[in-house]
Every structure is written in structure tokens, then in C-alpha cells.
């Protein structure tokens, strides 16, 4: 059974459909990413999963329970880190951790959690005096302290420095290794590529693609990127008729082509035929970033 099931979810605000028929299922122990441009409906979708919003239509189930009707039972198995929320300004980090520990029947020990999130030095600091990154780390700790079966993390590492970001990723991987299911909303492609087993790309309230990170890259039009500086100009017609070509860009004499493996072979053949040397030739796999832009652009057009 899927731990999270969302089917045909719809939610409108003021007549505008923010979520317009989203369906996906997250399996136990999976890290499932939700990726999309700003205003795509990512946060509204996960807020329906958390039971903070009542869907206009569609079905949402968390461990088989309705997050709205069975809110109390869902709250016991689900830990949430919200995109925008605060705590009482004069509450210290330790008090916040102790308070949220007291909310749960079988909580984790907050001390090792605080240690891993680099909060140990800040235990006596009041919430209002924490930096953005420290607040973020505290909210991650509060989402996990109840020892949940499912965690929903909305913009997990926003505001964190590169080291804290990497430490947080390791923490999430460890939590998943213990069988916890993770639903992750993110802007960072590197984060999605590193952590997620599968990703749903949401654009304009709909799912534009749902696949593994590698699958998303592979299915986008320009999965392979070839760049080089030709020793002599190449004929535009020859270039534009290359097989599998997705895009071509000429910047100060340096060509960047995206396409498939077939395109790579054709480029090499073309260069040999024209006796042109390719300086600084690079062939790389496209990143999730490229795939994301390609997928969301397609949906826009």
C-alpha cells in the first residue's frame, strides 16, 4: 500500500485553479520530490497532504487516513516542516524542542537530533534571535522529533549554507534508511537529484512529468550536451539538420548543442568530413536543471 496517495486533487483560490488534477503515490521508504516553478501549486499540494487545506475535489490519503477528517491520527504519523511559520519569539531552542517532544507518544531523543543539525550551541538562544538558517534547522528538528512515519519537508534547505545543506541531506538519507517516507518540495535541482527516488514536476497546477531523476533527464529532448570551438566556421544548414538535435547555441564562436547520443556521433562525422578541428570538445549528460527547464517550458508553450 502506498503511504501517501493523491488522486485528482483540485484546489482553487478565487476562481483560479492552483492545483488542477494532481495525482501521485508515494511508497514506503521512498524520497519523493515535488519540483516546479514558483506558484506552480507545490505548497498547496503538500498542505492538502498535511491536512492544512481542504481540497475542493480529489482524494488524499496518508497511511490510508484522510488528513482532514482524521486529522488527529494523521498528525501522529506525519511530521511537517512548513515553508512559512514561526515560533514564539521568546521561546528558546531547547524549550521548543522539549515542547514538541511532549506533543508525541513515542518521540525521538531531541539531543542527538539537535547535535546533527548543529543546534547544540544555540539551545539557550531565543527563537527571535536565531538566523534564518538556524530557524530552518530548528524546524527540521521539530518535524522529525515526533519520530514520524512520513515527513513532509517544504523547501528543506532554503537559507542554509552549503555545508549545512549537505549535512541536512545526509540526515534525510539516514532517516529514510530507517524506513521513513519523505515528501520533499524543492527548488534545488542538486538536492532533488541527490535525494529523490522519484520526482513529480508540477507546472501550473498539473503534473508535467513524473519519473526518476535519471528518467527525467533522459526523456527531455536534450539529454546530452556537446560543446566545442570549431577551428573553422561550420555551415548552419549542416548543423541544423543533425539528427536528434534539440537546441543549438553559438556564443562568440563556441557552439553548444544538445541532443542525443546520435547527435554526438553525427557531430564527430561532420567535423571529420569538413576537416574541422574541435577545440575543447566536451560531451556531458544534461543535468536535471536542463530537464526541468525543458519540461516546464514545454508545458508553458
Amino acid at each position: 500500500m502506498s503511504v501517501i496517495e493523491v488522486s485528482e486533487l483540485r484546489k482553487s483560490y478565487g476562481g483560479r485553479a492552483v492545483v488542477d488534477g494532481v495525482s501521485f503515490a508515494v511508497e514506503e521508504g521512498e524520497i519523493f520530490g515535488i519540483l516546479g516553478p514558483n506558484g506552480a501549486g507545490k505548497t498547496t499540494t503538500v498542505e492538502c497532504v498535511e491536512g492544512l487545506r481542504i481540497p475542493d475535489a480529489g482524494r488524499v490519503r496518508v497511511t490510508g487516513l484522510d488528513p482532514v477528517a482524521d486529522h488527529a491520527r494523521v498528525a501522529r504519523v506525519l511530521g511537517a516542516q512548513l515553508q512559512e511559520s514561526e515560533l514564539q519569539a521568546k521561546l528558546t531552542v531547547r524549550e521548543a524542542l522539549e515542547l514538541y517532544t511532549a506533543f508525541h507518544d513515542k518521540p525521538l531523543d531531541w539531543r542527538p537530533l539537535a547535535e546533527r543539525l548543529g543546534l547544540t550551541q544555540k539551545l539557550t538562544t531565543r527563537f527571535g534571535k536565531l538566523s534564518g538558517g538556524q530557524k530552518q534547522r530548528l524546524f527540521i528538528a521539530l518535524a522529525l522529533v515526533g519520530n514520524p512515519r512520513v515527513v513532509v519537508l517544504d523547501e528543506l534547505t532554503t537559507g542554509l549554507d552549503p555545508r549545512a545543506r549537505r549535512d541536512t541531506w545526509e540526515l534525510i538519507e539516514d532517516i529514510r534508511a530507517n524506513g521513513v517516507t519523505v515528501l520533499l518540495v524543492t527548488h534545488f535541482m542538486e538536492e532533488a537529484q541527490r535525494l529523490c527516488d522519484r520526482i513529480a514536476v508540477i507546472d501550473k497546477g498539473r503534473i508535467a512529468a513524473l519519473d526518476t531523476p535519471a528518467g527525467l533527464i533522459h526523456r527531455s529532448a536534450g539529454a546530452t550536451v556537446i560543446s566545442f570551438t570549431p577551428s573553422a566556421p561550420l555551415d548552419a544548414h549542416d548543423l541544423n539538420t543533425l539528427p536528434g538535435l534539440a537546441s543549438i547555441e553559438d556564443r562568440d564562436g563556441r557552439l553548444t548543442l544538445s541532443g542525443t547520443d546520435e547527435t554526438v556521433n553525427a557531430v564527430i562525422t561532420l567535423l571529420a568530413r569538413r576537416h574541422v578541428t574541435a577545440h575543447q570538445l566536451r560531451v556531458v549528460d544534461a543535468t536535471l536543471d536542463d530537464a526541468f527547464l525543458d519540461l516546464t517550458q514545454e508545458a508553458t508553450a
Partner: protein
Amino acid sequence: MNTAVLRTEVRLFRREPGALFWILLFPTLLLVILGSIPSFRNHEADLGGLRTIDVYVPVAVLLGLIVGGLQSMPQTLTGYRERGILRRMSTTPVRPTALLTAQMTVYGGAALASALLALLVGRFAFAVRLPEQPAGYLLALVPAVLVALALGAVISALSRTTKIAGAIGSAVFFPSMFCAGVWAPVQTMPDVLARIVGYTPFGAAAEALNRAAAGDWPGWTHLGVLVVWTVLLTAAASRWFRWE
């Protein structure tokens, strides 16, 4: 009622020097200042032989709960909603109502402590006699605290931001202080005015407290007025309150 939440809110209340001063100390301080005026310690025929300081003790008792209920509590609750604290809590097994009840307990408790302080300072500094009908006094004080909290809850329900809560709070604060008798104790008001004021929550509370202080049981009318206001305001608050 969640004890962890209550403990936290009590702790946070102790970290608010402003609230501590205005709720716990200010009413008694006002009493001390008034009591220091020599003429206020003379027996007045107009007041039925009481001294001005005698009639100001119940005013001081009401003042603490008006400040706590109408000024402090709506600010805190609206801030909790505005800053997403209630929302964050609603994703945990503890419902945000726990935070509301904890807040009411904290401000209700502080108002009672403030009342006790005013009574004791009145007694020992100015020889104001303690209420002669203590059970009747408590019978009047408890609904007075409840009506202040209910009115504060309505203000929180109607205010989207802490700024609005501050504005509505002040707009209700001054008439409430007037009715409680801060500028002119109810006993000194003209009859018609006193009768009108007797139908307001804090006017009724002042009259009920005065009767109990003098040794009578508070009248059913005044207690009834307090109960009706409490019921109406609580219904309004629960009807209009928004969690986000």
C-alpha cells in the same frame, strides 16, 4: 488542556516585562498613588461614609483584568495566528485550541493575582477592609474575569493583524475602564448613567464587587448581566475565530 503548552505559555508570559507591569503592578500602583492624596482618605457623605480609596479598590481589581483581557491577550493570540504559530501547531497531535486555553488560563490567572495584590495593598497600606462577603466577591470576580477573556477572544477573532488587534483593543479598553469606574467610581455616577453602566460587562462587575465588598451577596441582575455577556461573547468568538 495540555500541561506542556501551559507551562510554556506561563514561562513566556514571565518574559514580557510590559505585560507583567500593566497587568500585575499598574492597578495597585494607581491605587497607591490615589491613596497618597490625603483628601482621598477622608470619609465622604456622598459615598455613604466610605472613603474615595475604599471605592477605588474594586476599580483596581477590575483594571488588571481589563488590561490583561483586552490589551495583552488579543495581541498575543493575533500574533500567534499572524506569524503561523497556530498553523505550525495544527500539524502536531496537539490542537491549537490547547494554545488558546493556555493563553486564557495565563491571563485569567494573572488578572486574579493582580486583584489579590490590589486587595492586600488596599488592606495593609490604606486600611481598606477586605470584602466582607468573600464567597460573594469570588462569585462576582470569576465571571468578571471570564467576560474580560471572552471580550478579548472576540477582539482576537475580529483582528487579522496585531495592529488591528491593538486598535480594536484600545477602542474597547477606554469605555471598559470608564464603566469599571476608573475616572468616576460607579457609586459617584448620576443614577441614570449608573443604571446604563450597570448593563455593560465591567459596570455590572463593579456593582457586583461593591455589593460583596459591603457584605451583601451580589445581585442576580448584575451576575446575570455578566453571564449573558460571557455567553454572547464566547459564542461570537467561536463563530468568528480563524486559525490562519
